[in-house]
């Protein structure tokens, strides 16, 4: 087994990435870019900007296609149903797009002129975009900021956490589906959260069970061959916030851009969502930030 480059100056050193022994080390670029050195001034700027945002929640999963965006959208809808949740527009900066009076959205999707435009960006450009979203969007006074993320654990996740590091993230909600192929990626994600000291609010098991609209009998399309999220949460001592069954109406509502919670208020999936949202609100209420009071609270 080979060692790290002899004479490695260490990632935090001023010589990081610049020393003679750094040549050929695959992390040279990372170190030379100053990742281990002085913090980006944007972090303080974002901390200031985020003072008007009471709660920040990241929605994560190691796995793709488990329902992060679906969940993020419906969490936002669910929270916005409380008329007391207010958003005010103040001053300059990018404006979020308001889909309801008290629900604003910012997405790279809005910046693309065609539905066929592909975002073929390397890491540094993606990081720059995320920095802009966090620093330059004028959210105004907001109760909740939900951050939807792509699958995996890479640039976007590291950036989001890094740029929000001074601004207090309440926690992360992790989405999974029941099968091991999903859980094995999700465990990596939970590991990531621990490493960056991001509190885990809990895990949501999505696409849990399918209830046939015709005969009402249950089927497991994505079988929990290793015990599903329940066993994983027990093993890792993390709360299981709830299980959402597969309801074909969810996909339809998303396709139409509507809130499934309003479209199908009596669905077992809606009931599951509401219970999960309540638990998230309770978590945010019981774990206020330790620093100075937020403006507007």
């Amino acid at each position, binding site marked *: 087994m080979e060692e790290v480059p002899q004479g490695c100056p260490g990632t935090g050193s001023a010589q990081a990435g610049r020393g003679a022994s750094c040549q050929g080390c*695959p992390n040279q670029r990372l170190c030379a870019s100053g990742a281990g050195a002085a913090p980006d001034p944007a972090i303080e700027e974002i901390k200031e900007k985020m003072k008007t945002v009471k709660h920040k929640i990241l929605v994560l999963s190691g796995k793709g*296609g488990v329902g992060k965006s679906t969940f993020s959208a419906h969490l936002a809808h669910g929270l916005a149903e409380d008329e007391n949740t207010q958003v005010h527009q103040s001053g300059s900066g990018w404006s979020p797009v308001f889909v309801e009076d008290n629900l604003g959205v910012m997405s790279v999707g809005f910046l693309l002129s065609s539905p066929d435009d592909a975002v073929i960006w390397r890491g540094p450009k993606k990081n720059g975009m995320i920095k802009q979203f966090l620093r330059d969007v004028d959210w105004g006074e907001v109760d909740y900021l939900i951050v939807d993320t792509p699958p995996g654990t890479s640039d976007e996740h590291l950036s989001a956490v890094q740029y929000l590091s001074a601004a207090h993230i309440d926690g992360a909600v992790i989405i999974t589906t029941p099968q091991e192929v999903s859980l094995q990626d999700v465990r990596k994600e939970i590991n990531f959260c621990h490493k960056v000291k991001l509190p885990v609010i809990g895990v949501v098991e999505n696409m849990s069970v399918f209830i046939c609209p*015709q005969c009402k009998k249950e089927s497991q399309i994505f079988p929990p061959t290793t015990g599903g999220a329940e066993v994983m949460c027990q093993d890792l001592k993390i709360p299981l916030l709830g299980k959402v069954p597969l309801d074909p109406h969810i996909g339809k509502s998303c396709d139409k851009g509507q809130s499934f919670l309003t479209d199908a208020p009596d669905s077992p999936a809606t009931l599951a969502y509401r219970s999960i949202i309540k638990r998230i609100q309770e978590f945010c209420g019981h774990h206020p930030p330790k620093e100075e009071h937020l403006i507007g609270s």
Partner: protein
Amino acid sequence: MEAAAAEPGNLAGVRHIILVLSGKGGVGKSTISTELALALRHAGKKVGILDVDLCGPSIPRMLRAQGRAVHQCDSGWVPVFVDQEQSISLMSVGFLLESPDEAVVWRGPKKNGSRLVQGLHAGRADAAWALQVTCAAEAGALIKQFVSDVAWGQLDYLVVDTPPGTSDEHMATVEALRPYSPLGALVVTTPQVVSVGDVRRELTFCRKTGLQVVGVVENMSGFVCPHCAECTNVFSRGGGEELARLAGVPFLGSVPLDPELTRSLEEGRDFIRDFPNSPAFPALSSIAQKVLSQAPARLS
């Protein structure tokens, strides 16, 4: 930029290379990659699978190959055979991740003085964390070496499974494979608008990088209730065909939701051999047939 002719190297003995792509996560790229490989094998072909999903390598589990040791030879990494007959070989980043708490995470073979990721600095003992940090900085470089450092030998088909999206990894993979004239890309979507919306962008990526699209596969296309036989469109309907039509590429077929298929993948079973009567089988076989018919005779 390299000349158009491929230099002799580890991919020189591979007749046809197919990439499996999607703009969207969780639509079944790894599933389709695995089943396509199995079906091609059953059609008598020698197949390799390259799993370049750095953050979520799923293929080892799907072929019951988790935790297998990887060896090196003079030309690079030796791919792992997943079957007794040695007709399917696999290389996945997942194999290189299987190291427990060690200061050095994993290393690649030396080739012309260059090295795959060598490890992190003392103190970062966790393999998974090390890879996450490396993903951010070096995904492109990692993939480039990973693609060219595997000693495949003679193969009829190499199926390349990718992570979702259009990023460093995809660009690096296409660039590394370009000298070997890939057959093209299989693009996977699910039926709903949200998926089609993402996968359209993937098709643009293919256009921009000069990657031919072999066709669109629509996965998770309906579920037949085992109790009453009613078919429900769990994830909407029609997206795959619509996407193929919009992009002017062939539509290769719809694969229904099939718990037997999901279970097979969980347990690393050969679905094509063991479940010929299962709902997903006809669609998967048909897709493999279409891929076989597209491959032109290649001069070696």
